[in-house]
């Protein structure tokens, strides 16, 4: 599964983690500078009200995008650190949430809503030993499998929970516009399904489709 004994992934992760750290420093500088601009205009507002409003709106945009950039940077940094240890204790709720954040753009491009289950619906106690990179790959592949079979306006929810007594993650799809059985069959027939099975096998887990909650069940033990 890994090239050069995993050193290629480790290299990629090390450089990416370092660059996200740099990127976050850039955002911190922009944040303080934008904050200073805001402070100054509070002390000395622009003489022209129309321009003050535009200035305030532009500054609000800067701050919103800063927050967005910082969140993305944090998520990406954690992702970049995944290869640090080839084997680690993986919390399935964290895993589900991280993959959702990393995959969100792919879902938005297809006009599909992708979300992690809310805290009261997800089990935060489920931990598995394993390769963090492969575990993320597996959940991502399951999400991608669903994204490629769903029309726009569908919803995917990723939930960490016990599935038939096993520690698992459910990728459940709603607003299918098709029969659940047909949807599950299309998942299994897709090119991504075999890749998903390969990755799950590598981490001693297995993937199943689910008609009851249409989508994919990943069982990790």
């Amino acid at each position, binding site marked *: 599964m890994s090239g050069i004994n995993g050193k290629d992934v480790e290299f990629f992760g090390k450089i990416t*983690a370092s660059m996200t*750290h740099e990127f*976050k*420093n850039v*955002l*911190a*500088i922009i*944040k*303080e*500078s934008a*904050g*200073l601009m805001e*402070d*100054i205009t509070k*002390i000395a507002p622009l003489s022209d009200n129309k321009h003050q409003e535009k200035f305030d709106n532009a500054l609000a945009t800067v701050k919103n995008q*800063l927050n967005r950039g*910082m969140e993305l940077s*944090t998520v990406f*940094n*954690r992702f970049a*650190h995944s290869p640090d240890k080839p084997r680690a204790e993986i919390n399935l709720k964290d895993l589900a949430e991280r993959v959702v954040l990393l995959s969100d753009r792919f879902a938005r491009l297809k006009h599909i809503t992708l979300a992690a289950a809310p805290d009261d619906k997800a089990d935060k106690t489920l931990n598995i030993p394993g390769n963090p990179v492969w575990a993320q790959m597996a959940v991502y592949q399951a999400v991608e499998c669903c994204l490629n079979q769903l029309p726009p306006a569908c919803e995917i929810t990723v939930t960490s929970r016990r599935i038939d007594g096993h520690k698992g993650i459910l990728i459940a799809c709603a607003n299918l516009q098709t029969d659940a059985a047909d949807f599950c069959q299309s998942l299994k027939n897709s090119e991504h399904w075999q890749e998903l099975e390969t990755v799950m096998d590598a981490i001693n887990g297995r993937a199943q489709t689910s008609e009851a909650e249409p989508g994919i069940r990943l069982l990790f033990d």
Partner: protein
Amino acid sequence: MNKVKVLLVDDEEEFVSALAERLDIRGIEAHVATDGEQALEMIENDTFQVIVLDVIMPGISGLEVLQRINAKQIDTAVILLTGHGSTKEGLEGMRMGAFDYLMKPLDIDDLISKMHETIEFKKS
């Protein structure tokens, strides 16, 4: 009432300069150092109520600066600044006597609140 006097130590000059200006607007006398050696020199020659100290810097790290402050028995409160991925350094710093640590990027109100908390703690 005397102004709170703080030393900000971070190798990112634009960051620490903008932060100093913002603290100044809020009535806090903020001085700036952009490396550990400069910070130690300033600490030897002046008195600060709080030192806000970046953990990861080129040259002397923030933890090494803290170690030297301790060695000289300089009585000043230290708040560490950490980035993601370096919370363990923040905790290590607290074991070495730092009052607390904050994650970058900062919220200035959180920083000021922590500074006042630090000063009150030192007084008691």
